[in-house]
């Protein structure tokens, strides 16, 4: 809400935009978080499956936090698709609450992730690039 105060002399007018900006900021954070959550879900869902190991290794990390070592590929059971998405969404919610003051990254330590993304025989080449492009386009069109 924009509030206006007019002084007695009518020469002294104050307009307070702070509440309006606060509302805009909240909407911006909310829209951005939604797009990032959808992007993360898309990447997890689109990760090619053989054993489910690569899909289970997706994480959302704060910008500067160290990466996570790949757990051993021991036949599982691995984290389910829903669990991976829920865990990532939890981190995105924290970042949203903090106003995206820290960067975030999607991280996957699976050693053969490059083959899944770029390999000619992969089930779903460029699945990461596709999600990132869609996220970028959606974020740039937030109004």
């Amino acid at each position, binding site marked *: 809400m924009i509030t206006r105060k007019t002084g007695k002399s009518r020469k002294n007018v104050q307009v307070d935009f702070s509440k309006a900006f606060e509302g805009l900021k909240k909407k911006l954070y909310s829209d951005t978080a939604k797009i990032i959550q959808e992007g993360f879900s898309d990447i997890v869902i689109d990760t090619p499956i053989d054993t489910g190991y690569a899909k289970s290794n997706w994480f959302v990390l704060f910008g500067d936090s160290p990466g996570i070592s790949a757990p051993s590929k021991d036949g599982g059971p691995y984290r389910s698709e829903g669990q991976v998405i829920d865990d990532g969404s939890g981190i995105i919610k924290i970042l949203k609450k903090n106003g995206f003051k820290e960067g975030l990254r999607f991280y996957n330590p699976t050693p053969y992730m490059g083959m899944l993304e*770029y390999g*000619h025989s992969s089930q779903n080449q460029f699945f990461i690039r*596709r999600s990132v492009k869609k996220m970028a386009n959606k974020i740039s069109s937030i109004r």
Partner: protein
Amino acid sequence: MLLLEREILGHLSDNWTQSPVISWANFNVSVNYSSDIEYLVPFLRNLDSQILETPASTGAVRRDYAMGLNLLLKENTGTSAVNSYVEVLKNLFSKKDISTANYSYSFSPLEVGPGFGQGPHFEIPISVEFYVYSSD
């Protein structure tokens, strides 16, 4: 497959004169890969499509693509051949504006990733992005 996809693949087919054989395995052509033959494996992935104007029914459309141009090379043959093939692909696509019969394509810089063993070959992932405007 969209006409704009067919035309840019046709451009590749018409202009690729190097020894690796183009494998159209990603376009419904079966290929029995032989370890004695080197291949160029194109694939296209639509990244996003956006209607840019209203009304949508007549609005221009921007389509973004990633094009893979992976090389499958004989194992243990070093990198000199890779460099020469990459140079040819760069000259064909990197940062180029290409016009075909019906479309104009704007390409990003070509990118070459770290290679890995894949079956009987060593695979070099090569990719380039492009966008194209169309009315459909």
